[in-house]
């Protein structure tokens, strides 16, 4: 029904908005610029969508946006980070569209002018979001002291930028322990890239598997992680394994910093790991369904192996891009481009945006 309305209202036969393929636009934008994060790419795609459409009223714009957002969210397995961007953009649109006078467009509220303003501002937003990573790096590098050992994980680009920036300032000597999963996901590929980059900057880096976090924590002075989304209570949603790092760091009294751009703040309030609005099949309880007719020793082993293989395949696939939730009480500070926040300040920032 939603799809029909705009075309029905468009008598001059202009191409219907849904003809615009938001998902492929999003994908190409994301691929074209390796520095882009999901929320920014989503916003850029939405700006593109508005630019391609022929909407002429406020309600139509919002409706179009909502439809595209829904399509986009459905197309990817974990829309949390993306929804941070789309929500933000939608919110921005609502506030600007409700107050056209504030745009100084003159008394005559020409929607075309408003739209152009929106488009240019949307692009400006994207520019700013890209620049924020550098700003965060400049804030965050002061947290790394001379002689410190930093523990980090995953392939967060903003963490990479921060560490690189710290390495570039000449007087700093620090070491990095990098938690890398042995898999070949894009995430760990980026991780390897950052490790190589840091090593070329003369930073000693040790890579460890997930299981060695507790072991190496004694040598660690601080933990820095990236985040996919920062939720309302100041907790973060991040790649699987971050929560346990947080727990371990807290139990050993090591500061645990999160680096995230403020467009990753998302209006979500998970109460526990299983309260996230996405389906994750990390816990997959199974029993082996084998006929018990043959039960010789080697055969058994074979079955076990096969099962293990299966499990690895199964949860390996999901655990790679699955996320967990790190509650705010484990987090010492969140470094954003607008400053270093305590976890409780996140909700204030979100309230500022939403009300």
């Amino acid at each position, binding site marked *: 029904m939603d799809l029909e309305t705009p075309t029905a209202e468009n008598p001059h036969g202009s191409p219907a908005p849904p003809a615009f393929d938001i998902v492929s636009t999003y994908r190409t934008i994301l691929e074209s610029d390796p520095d882009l994060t999901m929320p920014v790419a989503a916003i850029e795609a939405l700006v593109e969508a508005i630019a391609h459409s022929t909407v002429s009223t406020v309600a139509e714009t919002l409706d179009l946006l909502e439809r595209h957002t829904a399509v986009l969210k459905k197309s990817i397995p974990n829309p949390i980070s993306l929804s941070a961007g789309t929500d933000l953009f939608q919110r921005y649109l609502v506030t600007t569209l409700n107050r056209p006078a504030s745009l100084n467009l003159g008394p005559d509220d020409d929607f075309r002018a408003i739209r152009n303003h929106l488009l240019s501002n949307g692009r400006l937003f994207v520019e700013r979001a890209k620049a924020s990573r550098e700003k965060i790096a400049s804030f965050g590098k002061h947290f790394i002291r001379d002689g410190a050992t930093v523990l980090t994980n995953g392939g967060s680009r903003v963490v990479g930028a921060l560490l690189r920036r710290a390495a570039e300032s000449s007087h700093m000597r620090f070491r990095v322990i990098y938690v890398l999963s042995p898999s070949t996901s894009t995430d760990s590929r980026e991780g390897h890239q950052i490790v190589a980059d840091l090593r070329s900057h003369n930073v000693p880096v040790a890579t460890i598997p997930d299981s060695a976090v507790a072991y190496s924590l004694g040598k660690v002075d601080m933990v820095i992680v990236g985040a996919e989304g920062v939720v*309302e*209570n*100041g907790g973060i949603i991040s790649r699987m394994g971050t929560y346990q790092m947080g727990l371990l760091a807290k139990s050993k009294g090591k500061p645990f910093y999160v680096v995230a751009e403020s467009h990753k703040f998302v209006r979500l*309030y998970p109460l526990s790991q299983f309260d996230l609005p996405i389906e994750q099949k990390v816990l997959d309880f199974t029993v082996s369904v084998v006929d018990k007719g043959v039960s010789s020793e080697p055969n058994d082993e074979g079955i076990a192996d096969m099962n293990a293989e299966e499990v690895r395949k199964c949860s390996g696939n999901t655990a790679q891009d699955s996320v967990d939730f790190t509650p705010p009480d484990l987090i010492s500070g969140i470094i954003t481009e607008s400053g270093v926040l305590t976890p409780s300040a996140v909700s204030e920032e979100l309230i500022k945006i939403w009300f």
Partner: protein
Amino acid sequence: MSDPPASEAAPPAVPAPAEKKISPAELKKQKAAEKQARRAQQKAEPPAHQQQGPATKQKDSKQPPKDDRSRPLPVRRRASQSNVPVPKDVKKEPKKEVKQVGLFFSHLYSQPRQHSVVGASKDVHPAILALGLQYSSYVICGSTARMVAMLLAFKAVIESYQTPVGTSLARHLTSHHLSPQIDFLRSCRPLSISMGNAIRWLKDIIIKIDPSTPEAEAKREMLEEIDNFIRDRVTAAGQLISGYAVKKIEAGDVILTYGSSSIVEQSILRAHREGIPFSVIVVDSKPLFEGKQLSRKLANHGLKVRYYLITGASHAVKDATKVFLGAHAMMSNGRLYSRVGAALVSMLASSQSLPVIVLCESVKFTERVALDSIVGNEVAPAEELLSESEREALLPLKPLLPQSLRKGDEVEDTKPETGDVLKWIEGSENLQMLQVLYDVTPAEYIDMVITEYGSLPPSSVPVVHRLSTNT
């Protein structure tokens, strides 16, 4: 107890009139000396003075403290600038504090609760009289219900109000007509935070009325504003909050709640209507047993309800998956001020790492902070602690009473009455009953506060409070 304060209060007061003319600096010096003397005196006989401690302190501070709970201590005003003759007070004081009440809660015993309309000011509107009695007998209970009932009664007051000649509505209504009503309500039961917020809002509305508006129109406007207020801040807010809360209830959950909260009830029923299969544990305690009614209501709607008293709370939390609490108020430091026992329940729950969720309309937010449950609280009549059957159960113990208490009764020696039990307790020196109504839950035991603005961590309470009062 009765003697020392009087004798102690006398010395600072007597010289005061004589030295009226001396400079402030000298006066200050004098006071410091007095203070030291008093301190020495106190040290000399410490046990007797424990109770008088706060009063003497207030004497020294120049401005009278704003806290109106300390009003019944007449010592304070006399010391700083006094024309009141001393002997009169000496006579008064022993009467006032026959028995030291409430230990460290003594500052909360401001005035006995009014249970009748006798002695009410003639200005008090009948609707308010009725409401006051409903408050004092807990017929209307719960901070939202009390606030709404008060606003509705105020509507009746405003409707029958006529501005006297020579005054303006904005000035006369707030200060002369509304305040006796509020005073009467306060004498029936201390005002809730939400009522205080609503009164502040209403006064603000009235003051802002343009004096040139005809009276009829102004009254109509006010009534409309009150209706809107109730609709926006209570009805609509309740719907929004229950909507958010329902999203947090998942299939198979066991929701634990304490006492009875209208908004929790609304949310649970809504989730039930939406077909989510879950069950409820209601934890309750004496003397109000508010949870009984809640459990009955929920059970009547077909929900599976388990009912515990607070003594079984540690077992109750083991079966629960989430805790929903109502609030009397949310303090600006993120603490929850709620029915006494809520702190216990939430602490037990968070020791089991259950999420504790507070449902609270923003009209109950206050800019005040609470560090403990002692400084600000409400003391209810202690006799409510003993139900009629419990009193009856105590009657056979009469022969065990100390001689001093028994004497009076034995003269008439009729059949024992349950009311006597209260007299025994009142008469006994070393036993007193204390019933406080609220307690404060520290913010770290609260995972989430759901308001009509959305879900927030308790640390964001002041932000939302600012937001809801500014707009």
